[in-house]
């Protein structure tokens, strides 16, 4: 599984990465977590507001910090 956290490295972006990392560890998920700060790569997804979370190429959320329950649901799909 490829998980990308899109954002400039601000507090909310770091929080999203923290949530994802925690859930990946807790559930022993085989995943590569990447922090994407490159504006061109972020815009390639059509994302206009950050933070954003992309799982296996699918943009799950943008502009908000997702709840842990929501991220768990996405990771378990």
């Amino acid at each position, binding site marked *: 599984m490829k998980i990308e956290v899109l954002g*400039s490295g601000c507090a909310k*972006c770091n929080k999203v990465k923290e949530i994802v990392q925690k859930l990946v560890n807790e559930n022993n998920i085989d995943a590569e977590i990447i922090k994407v700060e490159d504006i061109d790569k972020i815009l390639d*997804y*059509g994302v206009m507001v950050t*933070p954003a979370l992309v799982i296996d190429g699918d943009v799950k959320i943008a502009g908000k910090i997702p709840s842990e329950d929501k991220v768990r649901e996405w990771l378990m799909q």
Partner: protein
Amino acid sequence: MANAVISGYIIMAEDLKCACDSTNVALFSCSGASNVGQLSNQLAIELTEKGVGKMMCAVGIGGEVAGLLRSAEGCDRIIAIDGCPLNCTKKTLELAGLEVNRHILVTDLGIKKNKDLRVKGPELADTLEKVSEILAN
């Protein structure tokens, strides 16, 4: 400074909005094939430059582009600018399940719809002033 192009618009790196700093307001225009459609597009650009909100791609909402849909969903408020009473922008957003908080209709601002695609100078300035007043209230 990195630049990128989304649907024909140059987006400067600093224009990608981080949700940490303030309220996110999305601006969508119909950008249709008429004077008022093109005026709606220019209004969205001007309002973005004035810091009222951030112009986003309405056609991407109709096209169900995930990143654009999620970005709109992640905004605190949505302003739709339609050129004429066909209300394509408002309808497109609502069909995608997005709530439109403010709706601007250019023909309600004293501009008659025609097939001109060039926005005439005074029309933009006059309409922008009216829209700014509406949004301030």
